[in-house]
């Protein structure tokens, strides 16, 4: 065990891996800082770039992007009041007022420090919890796995958006689409329409790039096409100016000490929220901010430019990053959209997440943990050194950035299969994603269901074979019964919850 951990960590700390993590973090911060672009989109486009890398380097690179993008969202949130990603919404509450007071750099630095701390905290929890969790999960057979997958699918209810019916339709269609291709038991072709390229199923990468990246860009192109941009959307409006007063540009030791309790509390909140699939970092940010405000002796100062507000929001939303990987790695259940895309990338690189991953790929996973810890420090250094550069990045006009991203979408989808068919699929999914966004169908539910669908079907089919077509035998398996009860509780809980609170914006 110790050998595995040390070997894994040793593999993580190579110059090449460090460089790729640096590159990932840099790309992540730059992308996350640009309003409208986000981490999952950047990871989806970057997955094809990892084909020439080993599994550890590839996943470390993608995790670097994820971590960087998480902080990147705070840059535009603080400087131009537009959250680079949804999770940074609560960062705008105090970040932007601080910028208006000439303390933009102070706000950004506090966002960076608290983001890195929250992320580091949740990584430590991930490292301590994931492996024991997976050992427990090892006692599960196909029946238990099926019950677990059913339980996981109920978490999609948290991501359905404003309309539960529409969200469920999107999720069920995601599962339906995942049945295209040769079925895993008898290799029977299903809805391949005679196309050999569909026999492996619908390309996950074409689907993710099309629905996440291309459709989002199309929405933004349309906003410019109709000339109805709102606010300083095409970049900075000159509000970011450096104050000549040194104290306005740094976080003092006293300020850090004052915020530390809040950062600790928010990190714990974010870690718990992140470990529960489906709840999302946006909710964590709001809860962290709300808890800090309730605990404060001067709650009336929140929203007026209080440094503690920035720290609370950023520590909480960043603490979901590592925690999201607990269910992803140990159970194969993606905690959120970024984790879902990372799950896809793990599968593409031959690592199947789930209870066996620590047995089959233990070295790589401990290497990944090492890389995640390193990525936090790299995030700190690159963020600290490049704050002014990233502040400039958000001023780049969208009409230059977005067309180039569309070009990257084409290239990314092509290199997966080297076929024009994947490009056609990507375009088709881009247009479908555009329509789904317009009609308020949840893309997140669709993608997560597409990933979980085959696992659920395989587990059910194996169970039916094992039990000789007697599903009632499931009731003789205590762990399966436990998950069925949890599924029922989960359905009850989500049916009572307000969808808009649980919604994970895409």
């Amino acid at each position, binding site marked *: 065990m110790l050998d595995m951990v040390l070997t894994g960590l040793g593999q993580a700390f190579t110059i090449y891996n460090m460089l790729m993590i640096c590159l990932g973090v840099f790309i992540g911060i730059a992308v996350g800082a640009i309003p409208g672009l986000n981490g999952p989109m950047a990871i989806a486009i970057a997955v*094809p*770039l990892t*084909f*020439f890398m080993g599994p550890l380097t590839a996943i470390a690179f993608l995790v670097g992007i994820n971590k960087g993008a998480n902080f990147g969202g705070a840059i535009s949130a603080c400087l131009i009041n537009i959250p680079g990603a949804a999770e940074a919404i609560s960062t705008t509450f105090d970040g932007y007022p601080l910028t208006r007071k000439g303390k933009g750099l102070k706000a950004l630095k506090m966002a960076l420090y608290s983001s890195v701390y929250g992320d580091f905290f949740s990584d430590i929890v991930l490292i301590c919890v994931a492996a024991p969790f997976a050992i427990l999960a090892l006692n599960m057979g196909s029946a238990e796995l099926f019950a677990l997958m059913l339980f996981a699918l109920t978490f999609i209810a948290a991501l359905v958006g*404003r*309309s539960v*019916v*529409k969200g*469920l*339709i999107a999720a*069920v*269609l995601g*599962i*339906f689409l995942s*049945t295209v291709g040769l079925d895993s*038991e*008898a290799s*029977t*072709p*299903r*809805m*391949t329409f005679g196309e050999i390229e569909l026999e492996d199923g619908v390309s996950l990468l074409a689907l993710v790039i099309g629905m996440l990246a291309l459709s989002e860009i*199309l929405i933004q*192109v*349309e906003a*410019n*096409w*109709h000339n109805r941009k709102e606010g300083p959307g095409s970049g900075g409006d000159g509000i970011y100016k450096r104050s000549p007063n040194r104290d306005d540009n740094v976080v003092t030791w006293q300020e850090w000490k004052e915020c530390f309790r809040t950062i600790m509390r928010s990190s714990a909140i974010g870690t718990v929220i992140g470990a529960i699939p489906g709840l999302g970092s946006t909710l964590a940010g709001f809860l962290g901010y709300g808890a800090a405000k309730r605990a404060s002796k001067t709650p009336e100062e929140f929203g007026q430019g209080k440094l503690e507000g920035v720290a609370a929001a950023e520590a909480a939303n960043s603490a979901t990053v590592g925690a999201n990987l607990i269910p992803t790695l140990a159970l194969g259940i993606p905690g959120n959209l970024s984790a879902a895309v990372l799950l896809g990338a793990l599968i593409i690189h031959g690592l199947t997440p789930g209870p066996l991953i620590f047995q089959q790929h233990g070295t790589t996973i401990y290497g990944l943990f090492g890389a995640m810890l390193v990525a936090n420090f790299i995030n700190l250094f690159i963020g600290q050194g490049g704050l002014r550069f990233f502040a400039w990045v958000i001023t780049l*006009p*969208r*009409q*230059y950035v*977005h*067309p*180039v991203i*569309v*070009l*990257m979408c*084409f*290239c990314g989808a*092509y*290199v997966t299969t*080297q076929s*024009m068919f994947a*490009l056609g699929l990507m*375009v088709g999914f*881009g*247009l479908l994603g*555009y*329509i789904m966004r317009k*009609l*308020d169908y949840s893309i997140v539910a669709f993608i997560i269901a597409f990933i979980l*669908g085959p696992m659920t*079907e395989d587990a*059910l*089919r194996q169970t*039916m*074979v094992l039990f*000789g*077509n007697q599903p009632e035998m499931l009731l003789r398996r205590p762990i399966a019964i436990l998950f069925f009860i949890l599924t029922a509780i989960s359905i009850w809980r989500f049916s009572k919850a307000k969808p808009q609170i649980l919604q994970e914006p895409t």
Partner: protein
Amino acid sequence: MVAFGLLVIFVVIPIWVPGHQEGNYGLRAQDAPYLTMIVATGLAAVFFIRRLFVDKDGGEPAPIPRESWVFLGVVAAVLIATLVLLEYIGILAGGPFVVAVLMVMMGERRPIPIAVTAIVAPLLVWAFFWKLLQFPLP
């Protein structure tokens, strides 16, 4: 959505998913597609009926406005033209086309920035994938 669901249930699945099964146990290959599409169609029918009789005045977001359909038609044509260019000429033709057209659609009117971006960006992407990573592009 209901019509699409019925089409899939009664036409697509029976034709494109073999129903026979070897052995006498387990689920058929048809079962998962049938189950999911029946659920999706049922939910769509519920939604349709609710919109028709319960939420007559909305409550749900408005349907896609006409100008968005026009935009979708234009952008679909641009993307399909890009696919054709990529298929028959390659990235160095399809790339500049899609970048230039999207820049114009996003409001850029100055020819020099459009030309420079449309030429330099695909060249850099091509050099990165093809020359640096050795990944062939179309």
